[in-house]
């Protein structure tokens, strides 16, 4: 075991983690721990763009952007946070440009902008060009640029280190800590993949930036490594997870594979068609058609297929048509994604339409934070010294459905904020004592897994989980399907107790780590399904066929899911009788649902029409 | 990559030949007899074949050298490197076709 001490420790080296690192390392001794080499984080997969009302190509302002974000999120957005997001967007795009990001340019040499789903002028009048982009590799350029600047600032990285535990001075999943009592985060425990050694990082401030959890689903645009680690670690310590029922399904994944074709394809003029060649989005969203927000488009597509108008031999996908676009235009604006179609499906997008189907894409929910990036342990108390940013976090700028291009924005705006807050806190805070042996939990978990002689295969359990999630908790959900998913998850939890790994070595044991990651996936799937069962309405990314309408009266609240000891009270903060009072018992613990009010400033909820 | 390997191999080959060649030519300083004796061995069929190989090496090295120079200094060079490699091989074949019959005739035919 090795011990390290840093003012600030950042977990995750994606866009959010590195943006925070650039801020924090200016004022505080900072380490970034990442299970991947930084440039391999999934931020690099983001394609389309990053929204900011620069008004470089047409009239625009941040208020319109705020409105679109709020409306896009089906009004479950915290409007104060959305305002910050839209306002600081401009500065964060300019920051990136100054750091060297090669944005595409207008003829005058300014940052070019393009259309994206849900972005409108004048509160929904017509589509607006707001997404700043670098071809269709905006995320790649952001990730590279941030890493380059980390190299410049000589940020310290611990690459291929897996953080497997968060150390706090109170374990809320085991003890009852009343509101108002101070809870501190004091460090993390990490596993060095290359050597199998355990490292303890003591820190005054810790930032979680571990990204999403798309691997709970089978069809997903997410990387194999996006297993919701940060969310699960916080959850296991009894910290709440917010709005986990809202998962975004991106309309245009390559059918059968899930690999994403950016919305930019439609932003540049691509059209969705069913087997009759009909531009079916004209029926569902007459004003902005193919550029409606993702939840609407994804549902419309799934509906076409359900009603028998799908294309292909099994009628199980629709078509994305780019054939009317100039090949030169496609090459200039969408080179990478057309390459995907060629490589993986052998389809030439110049002349043939591309088979697409919705793919699990983005977790709107996550570890709740305030706008400073501080992690909340209930509706109001923060955990001292713990911050979160990026997809792992839920500041709730995305509400129940994220607008395209708002996530790259989120990681920059709130990554920066979290970094700044953490460094400021580290200035005034002291190191706090760690438990005598901070590594027990991790070491025993690893040893147990390694030593279990024979058992279920990790991959079998994982596949079963992903399949039930795809079948029962995807674009269309019902109480019945969700309960089925929950039953399956309970079953799989039992099997997980019994999985064993074949690789018993110390060096680069990815077999072992996949087993650990499966544990995170089960946790995340469990909260997602429990929260989805409780929300008996349809809103944004969460669509209940048995409750197809939005119910602002009872559900205009954020879900807060707490893992608690079996003996704990059956009520959590934000308990609303009949609506947010669900309790789900598991072996040895239970999940208690509470709620948190939605912050509303200037936009009253309206019906969401496009 | 193979064009590079060939370039390397032919370069070294020529270099070692050059060493020997200068040394034997230096014999003209020693005496005409000595020189002629050595040169005489160049005129045997075996050496004649060797010589053909050497010329081939030089010809390839030279043309491929030009190709490399074009790759280096002509902006479109890298794009057409493969095409140019075929051109090099073509020129090589043409040159050798011009040279070999004559040379072999001199070596084997000649009637000396």
């Amino acid at each position, binding site marked *: 075991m090795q011990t390290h001490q840093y003012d600030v420790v950042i977990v995750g080296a994606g866009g959010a983690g590195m943006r925070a690192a650039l801020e924090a390392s200016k004022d505080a001794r900072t380490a970034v721990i990442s299970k991947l080499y930084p440039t391999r984080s999934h931020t690099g997969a983001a394609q389309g763009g990053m929204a900011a009302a620069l008004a470089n190509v047409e009239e625009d302002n941040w208020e319109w952007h705020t409105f679109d974000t709020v409306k896009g999120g089906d009004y479950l957005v915290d409007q104060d946070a959305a305002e910050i997001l839209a306002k600081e967007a401009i500065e964060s795009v300019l920051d990136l440009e100054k750091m060297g990001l090669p944005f595409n340019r207008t003829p005058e*040499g300014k940052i070019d902008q393009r259309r994206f789903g849900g972005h409108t002028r004048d509160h929904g009048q017509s589509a607006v060009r707001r997404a700043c982009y670098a071809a269709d590799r905006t995320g790649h350029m952001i990730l590279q640029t941030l890493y*380059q600047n980390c190299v410049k600032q000589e940020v310290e990285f611990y690459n291929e280190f897996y953080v497997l535990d968060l150390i706090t001075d109170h374990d809320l999943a085991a003890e009852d800590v009343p509101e108002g009592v101070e809870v501190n985060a004091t460090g993390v425990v990490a596993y060095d993949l290359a050597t199998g050694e355990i490292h303890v990082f003591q820190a005054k401030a810790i930032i979680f930036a571990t990204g999403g959890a798309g691997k709970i689903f089978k069809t997903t645009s997410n990387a194999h490594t996006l297993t919701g680690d940060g969310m699960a670690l916080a959850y296991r310590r009894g910290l709440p997870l917010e709005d986990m029922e809202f998962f975004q399904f991106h309309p245009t994944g390559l059918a059968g594979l899930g690999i994403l074709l950016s919305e930019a394809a439609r932003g540049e003029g691509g059209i969705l068609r069913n087997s009759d060649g009909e531009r079916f989005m004209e029926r569902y969203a007459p004003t902005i058609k193919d550029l409606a927000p993702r939840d609407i488009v994804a549902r419309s597509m799934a509906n076409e297929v359900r009603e028998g108008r799908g294309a292909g031999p099994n009628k199980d996908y629709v078509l994305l048509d780019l054939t009317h676009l100039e090949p030169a235009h496609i090459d200039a604006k969408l080179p990478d994604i057309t390459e995907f179609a060629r490589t993986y499906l052998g389809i030439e997008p110049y002349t043939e339409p591309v088979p697409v189907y919705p793919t699990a894409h983005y977790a709107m929910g996550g570890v709740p934070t305030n706008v400073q990036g501080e992690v909340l342990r209930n509706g109001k108390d923060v955990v001292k010294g713990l911050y979160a940013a990026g997809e792992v976090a839920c500041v709730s700028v995305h509400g129940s459905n994220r607008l395209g291009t708002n996530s790259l924005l989120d990681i920059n705006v709130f990554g920066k904020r979290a970094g700044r807050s953490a460094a400021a806190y580290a200035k005034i805070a002291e190191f706090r004592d760690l438990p005598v042996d901070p590594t027990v939990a991790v070491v025993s978990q690893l040893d147990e897994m390694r030593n279990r002689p024979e058992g279920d295969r990790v991959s079998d359990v994982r596949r079963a989980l992903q399949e039930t999630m795809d079948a029962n908790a995807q674009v269309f959900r019902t109480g019945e399907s969700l309960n089925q998913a929950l039953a399956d998850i309970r079953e799989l939890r039992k099997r997980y107790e019994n999985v064993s790994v074949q690789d018993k070595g110390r060096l680069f044991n990815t077999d072992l780590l996949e087993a650990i990651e499966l544990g995170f996936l089960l946790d995340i799937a469990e909260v997602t399904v429990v929260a989805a069962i409780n929300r008996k309405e349809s809103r944004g990314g969460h669509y209940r066929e048995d409750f197809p309408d939005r119910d602002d009266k009872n559900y205009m609240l954020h879900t807060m899911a707490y893992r608690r000891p079996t003996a704990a009270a059956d009520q959590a903060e934000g308990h609303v009788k009949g609506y947010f009072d669900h309790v789900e018992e598991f072996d040895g613990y239970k999940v208690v649902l509470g709620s948190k009010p939605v912050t509303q400033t200037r936009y009253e909820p309206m019906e969401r029409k496009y | 990559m193979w064009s590079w390997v060939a370039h390397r191999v032919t370069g070294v080959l020529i270099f070692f030949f050059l060493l020997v060649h200068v040394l034997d030519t230096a014999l003209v300083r020693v005496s005409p007899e000595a020189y002629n004796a050595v040169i005489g061995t160049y005129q045997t069929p075996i050496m004649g074949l060797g010589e053909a190989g050497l010329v081939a090496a030089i010809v390839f090295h030279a043309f491929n050298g030009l190709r490399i120079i074009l790759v280096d200094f002509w902006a479109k060079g890298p794009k057409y490197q493969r095409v140019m490699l075929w051109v090099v091989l073509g020129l090589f074949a043409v040159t050798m076709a011009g040279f070999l019959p004559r040379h072999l005739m001199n070596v084997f035919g000649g009637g000396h």
Partner: protein
Amino acid sequence: MTATLEAPETKAGAIPSFEVTLRVRRYNPESEHGEESFWDEYTVTAHGTDRVLDALHKIKWEHDGSLTFRRSCAHGVCGSDAMRINGRNRLACKTLLKDVNPDKPITVEPIKGLPVVKDLVVDMEPFFASYREIMPFLITNGNEPTKERIQSPEDRARFDDTTKCILCAACTSSCPVFWTDGQYFGPAAIVNAHRFIFDSRDEGAQQRLEILNDKEGVWRCRTTFNCTEACPRGIEVTKAIQEVKRAMITRAF
């Protein structure tokens, strides 16, 4: 508008499958083979759109959990899984089985020239060290403008190709010069230097040229084009290297 021939079929059973054999070069100092590398052969069932990565996953998940390789994104954008497949460097997640002749055993080896850690995993540190050495960040002097720096679309296009690099090391580890002693900076570092040297906003070109004007720098490149052929992002690597060489010559004379 009808569906095309090769459209994937998601329903199981409808998909044509075939058997494919992978011959994997392995190395595991903890195994009974010790410091010796060895070959393992696996035969798995694959489907039309399966990639080499899918086959490796199948092996790992269904047969031999100890088979070790890196991967993340699974669609060619993160640069984790560069490996030598049938003697050529490629990304396993971008190489369709049907494109590498699945009738014969497919050989899979770690990329060459970097120290192997375990199976297909190599130590990337020397590679990233070279990358960091060329100062891969925008260098500017003077005051920052309040808004963005202006750059014409033409100036932006000048270095577009080299911005695509995902640092997968396929190029550097395919370079015969790099294989010799591993001292050469390698094409990837030069590509990333190129990205800044030809960025009209950057003012650090002189320093970078100075760094690469090294015995182990650009001059070691012998234009063998292996890197260009290996690059999964289609970057014209050799061309970029040549442009850097020419910039150095212009500067020296």
